[in-house]
């Protein structure tokens, strides 16, 4: 495939990003780029800061210092209106789906269209059917989220994220809580989206099998820092000790000291906002 100038474009650029919850700094200077049309998997254990990183990328957290360049704007320095404009061009699929329980699946997918476009209801209905079909949920427009299984909820969430034809798609733990077969289905969906739309996709996960299946590049975050970043195959054969520990599923050494245990606990617990 010919590398066009467009394909080499940088979609997201992080420079020395630091994010804190109150006094506690979670991300200690993260820097990397995301290229157009690539699928980047952010790997990390619990408490590594990967969820915070994802939330900052979509504007749910504000950086305490550093820069995030997304679609030409520094998220650390823009107004709410500008952030909202950027958000119309990105889509996010949350860990539990985060579908609105009081609306049907169809209404969920239609919501961004109703809010941000002046399209006719009939047009919106057609788009909703299209999106649901793309994720394998054709015909489920009138179901309530509570009537769906876990895997179907994830798919519906993806359909909703796709409603406005985003340029960048974010996934927060897409396989979490799903059995291996259903999780594989979600992986397949991500691969299909990659192939069909050449979307830039960012996935936060700790499921290694999924990660290696879908990733072009991976970045391993540990204790708020980038430990390693590179193409998936390079990561697989990396000799970096933390990378090997993560990939080979080696348990942490037995924590004998009470203070160490306390520190481990407080690094894992997410503080209330």
């Amino acid at each position, binding site marked *: 495939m010919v590398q066009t100038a467009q394909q080499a474009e940088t979609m997201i650029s992080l420079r020395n990003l630091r994010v804190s919850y109150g006094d506690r700094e979670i991300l200690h200077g993260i820097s990397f780029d995301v290229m157009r049309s690539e699928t980047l998997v952010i790997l990390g254990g619990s408490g590594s800061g990967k969820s915070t990183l994802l*939330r900052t990328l*979509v*504007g*749910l957290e504000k950086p305490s210092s550093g820069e995030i360049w997304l679609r030409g704007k520094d998220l650390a320095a823009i107004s709410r209106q500008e*952030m*909202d*404009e950027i*958000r*119309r061009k*990105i*889509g*996010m699929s*949350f*860990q*539990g789906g*985060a*579908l*609105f*329980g*009081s609306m049907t699946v169809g209404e969920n997918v239609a*919501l*961004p269209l109703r*809010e*941000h476009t002046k399209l006719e209801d009939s047009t919106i209905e057609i788009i909703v059917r299209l999106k649901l079909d793309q994720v394998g949920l054709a015909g489920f427009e009138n179901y309530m989220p509570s009537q769906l299984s876990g895997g179907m909820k994830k798919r519906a969430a993806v359909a*909703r994220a796709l409603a406005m034809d985003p340029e960048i798609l974010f996934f927060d733990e897409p396989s979490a809580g799903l059995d291996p077969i259903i999780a594989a289905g979600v992986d397949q969906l991500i691969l299909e989206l990659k192939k069909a739309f050449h979307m830039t996709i960012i996935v936060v996960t700790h499921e290694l099998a999924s990660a290696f299946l879908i990733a072009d590049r991976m970045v391993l975050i540990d204790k708020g820092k980038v430990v390693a970043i590179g193409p998936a195959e390079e990561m697989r054969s990396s000799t970096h000790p933390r990378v090997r520990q993560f990939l080979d599923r080696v348990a942490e050494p037995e924590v004998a000291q009470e203070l160490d245990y306390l520190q481990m606990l407080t690094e894992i617990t*997410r503080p*209330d906002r």
Partner: protein
Amino acid sequence: MELTSQIGGSVTDGLAYLGGLASLVGRAAYFTFVAPFRGKPLRLPRAVSQAMQVGVRALPILSLITFFIGLILALQSAYELRRLGALNFVANAVAISVTRELGPLITAIVVIGRSGSAFAAEIGTMKVSEEIDALETMAIQPVDFLVTPKFLAMIVMLPCLTIWANSMGILGGALFGVAQADFTWTRYIQASLDALFLRDIVTGLVKSVMFGITITAVGCYEGLITGAGAEQVGRSTTRAVVVSIFLVILVDLVFTTLFFFMSGR
């Protein structure tokens, strides 16, 4: 020293809480009154369905409660009035107490129990399942989408419910009047109307609007600041009810005092 710092801490926490409430009311007011002129939709369908839930569905229970309150008031006043040989003033006593105070207050308490808790639970559950975050990532403002329709509904419905409650309270008193105080239904109602000044009804209605704003603000605020987990939703709901009751009584005190000094009689 311990006690002083605790009191100080509670006071600053309380003020911060009130600040949060005020900020929420301010933003909801922006979306209700300013944003429509800047092209954003007013969300009337959602406000109407909220109004159905908050207002119309509350009518049965509210009717019963305020009817009984009217009856209780009549009984209690009659107890003293009878000794003074002034039993025919029962209608006056009930009418004035109900329209000025108990109509708005009891209505507010019923609405707190039904809707204040429901707002906190609904929004709290959404917070816990990341639905609020989802709204934000879709460039939809949670306050605009969730809270403003509720404010609209409550501000319209609470005065309406209060008027209904006032009527039911007077009817409750009428039951006593007819049964024990030699009234007929028409004479009792006429006596009630004669005893009332417009001021009595209007002050009650103004209070009811303020109660509505308070209840919505507390319910939605508690929902939005819910911590993680189902247990936290329960806590938010409980706090919403308790804090609402307290603040409603406080607002009642403020406005009753205000009206007292304004009357200058």
